[in-house]
């Protein structure tokens, strides 16, 4: 009866919040857990449960996996609304089961926060778990990658099939006793042999602590590693993404020595990782290559994460760049640098959830590769939000010409500082707490550029 009432009241809470036009991705789950603390352990297991965790890419992979299964005709329950902690997962179950806790869906696809995994995974006991990677993240919440590894290692149940990143020396070692499959990204034109990033978290051999060598290194600590002292090396991947052809929109993937061409969902290297993780999982779920290829043609990246707009002759590219997450920001800075054209960059990276009562910690910005923005094709950098002075200082330390740096605390005022003279693209990089405001900022930038273009 406890489960019945918990589900009933949580469903009612959901309906009420929706009627009021409020976000209902968290509270109904909190209601269910309040009334039935072991709610997640009591609801009946779905025919298939897939969890996705890891520092970067888990939202994108979760959405892509859920989209994929829906395209294949499955009824899917998924926490797409981005609440990936216990309440969010409980909320997803509330909406995916009947009043007596019986599943109404064919599959659950759940994004699971790494730290919250201890309160989720032992109860829902997934069939499959994808771990995209482990990097440093918000230091307040996640401390450091070693700690997150310990949490996952302790709380991922035995028997879960693991889909892991072969290129990550840390997460590839998770649950060594569980059955597993690896994905990887092969050598890329942009690869290096020595790390050029400010941070690389897992570069010493886990067996003998010698600094590992890379045959090729994509970024930070992801690449094909080997220990020169004891021979420890990256595990063999079942699926390896090789060449991405942006013009053709294709991605060559190697599996058991054979190469096949898949649609390219997005050309950013981190999104190639997300796509190859999906391909590996889909094959494990029993879908053949042709089915995967035809399904991927209809899958894209969620709009809250990436949008392309146009203002006259200028592209305005809006991209989520999670503040407090140095690697996510570095990836975006690298992408900005690598894309052709003359650019202006607008940075709104503060985590605004801190603004009400406290001051955001900015130590993380000193782990971000602002050096990538010190590029001749980047003509202007506008920094905004309360910590804009810290971002300016970081840019100066990265060697950026002070003449290129513009600063305004107010985000809309900062939007007016974008100078269209001689640029082809504007990159608007925003923290996830600023998504709603990023829409207004983007509108303002587009309006300004269009008006100036007309003049």
């Amino acid at each position, binding site marked *: 009866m406890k489960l019945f009432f918990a589900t009933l009241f949580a469903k009612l809470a959901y309906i009420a919040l929706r009627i009021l036009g409020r976000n209902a991705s968290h509270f109904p789950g909190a209601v269910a857990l309040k009334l039935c603390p072991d709610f997640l352990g009591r609801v009946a297991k779905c025919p298939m449960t897939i969890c996705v965790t890891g520092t970067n890419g888990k939202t994108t992979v979760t959405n892509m996996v859920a989209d994929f299964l829906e395209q294949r005709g499955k009824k899917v329950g998924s926490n797409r609304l981005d609440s990936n902690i216990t309440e969010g997962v409980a909320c997803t179950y509330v909406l995916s089961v009947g009043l007596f806790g019986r599943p109404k869906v064919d599959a659950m696809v759940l994004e699971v926060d790494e730290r919250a995994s201890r309160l989720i995974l032992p109860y829902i006991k997934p069939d499959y778990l994808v771990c995209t990677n482990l990097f*440093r993240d918000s*230091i*307040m*919440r996640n*401390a*450091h*990658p*070693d*700690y997150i590894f310990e*949490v996952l290692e302790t709380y991922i149940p035995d028997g879960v099939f693991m889909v892991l990143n072969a290129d990550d020396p840390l997460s590839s070692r998770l649950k060594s006793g569980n059955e597993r499959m690896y994905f990887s990204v092969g050598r890329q034109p942009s690869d290096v042999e020595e790390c050029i990033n*400010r*941070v690389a*978290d897992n*570069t*010493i051999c886990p067996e003998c*602590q*010698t*600094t590992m060598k890379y045959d090729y290194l994509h970024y930070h600590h992801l690449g094909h590693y080997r220990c020169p002292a004891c021979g420890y090396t990256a595990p063999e991947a079942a699926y390896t993404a090789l060449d991405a052809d942006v013009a053709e929109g294709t991605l060559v993937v190697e599996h058991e020595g054979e190469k096949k061409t898949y649609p390219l969902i997005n050309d950013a290297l981190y999104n190639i990782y997300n796509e190859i993780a999906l391909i590996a999982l889909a094959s494990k779920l029993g879908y053949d290559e042709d089915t995967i290829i035809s399904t991927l043609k209809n899958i894209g990246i969620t709009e809250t994460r990436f949008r392309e707009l146009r203002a006259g002759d200028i592209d305005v590219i809006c991209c989520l760049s999670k503040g407090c997450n*140095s690697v996510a920001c570095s990836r975006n800075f690298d992408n900005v640098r690598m894309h052709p054209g003359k650019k202006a960059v607008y940075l709104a990276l503060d985590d605004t959830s*801190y603004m*009400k*009562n*406290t*001051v955001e*910690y*900015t*130590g*993380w*910005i*000193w*782990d971000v590769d602002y050096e990538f923005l010190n590029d001749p094709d980047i003509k202007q950098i506008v920094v905004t939000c*309360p910590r804009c*002075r*810290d971002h*300016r*200082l970081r840019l*100066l*330390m990265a060697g950026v010409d002070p003449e290129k740096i513009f600063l305004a605390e107010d985000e809309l005022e900062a939007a007016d500082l974008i100078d269209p003279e001689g640029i082809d693209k504007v990159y608007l990089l925003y923290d996830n707490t600023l998504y709603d405001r990023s829409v207004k900022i983007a509108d303002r930038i587009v309006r300004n550029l269009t008006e100036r273009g007309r003049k």
Partner: protein
Amino acid sequence: MKIEVLYPEVCCLYGDKSNADYLKKCLPECEMVYTSLTDEPRFAFEPVDLIYLCSMSERSQELVLERLKNYKNVLRLLIDEQKCVILAVGNAMELFGQYIQKEDGEKIEALGITDTYAVRQKPDRFNSLGILSMGDMTLVGYTTRFSHSYGLSKEDALFKVVRGSGINPDTDLEGVRKGRFFATYTVGPLLISNPDFTRFILDEMGAPEATVAFEKEAREAYEKRLAGIRAAKELLQ
């Protein structure tokens, strides 16, 4: 001038690396030495002007202690005779104390150079902003850790807490000072965020002629942050 950064492959958390980079910007002619876990530290066989040690994971603390124990006497001598500046931030401070008590009660013997000892409380994370003072100087800082330290006397404290927390929640003393040895739980851009403390460290290194890099911009960021922390309703995060 020579700055030795110890074990950067594991001692590299929380933006701490930026302090060494900032000193290099202030001292462009300075030689930077990055010593890995498999190398013999430079301080063991030649003079250096500053030894810098950053935050690390708890697992790495044990690895680093294993390495540094071989140089315990050299380090003690350098500190006692004030041969060079040593700056240890975050949980690097704990390595110089008596011991680190793990969550299960096991004690890991540390270098025994300072009187403090650390007690881990994992998985409870302690995060706090702070305002600290040293003489006339006011500093802004941030700490994030799984442990607290105890056994610090007023005479050995590096900072006094104005707002925030000391080396444990029951004290207003923060950090350890022993001659030219400076250790603090403050993590991240300690020097960049505090131009006056950078000036102090440069002077301690014997470089009074060196200028604080980007001082105007650093001071603007410092003033804004100081005002923000003074006004903040919450310091614990």
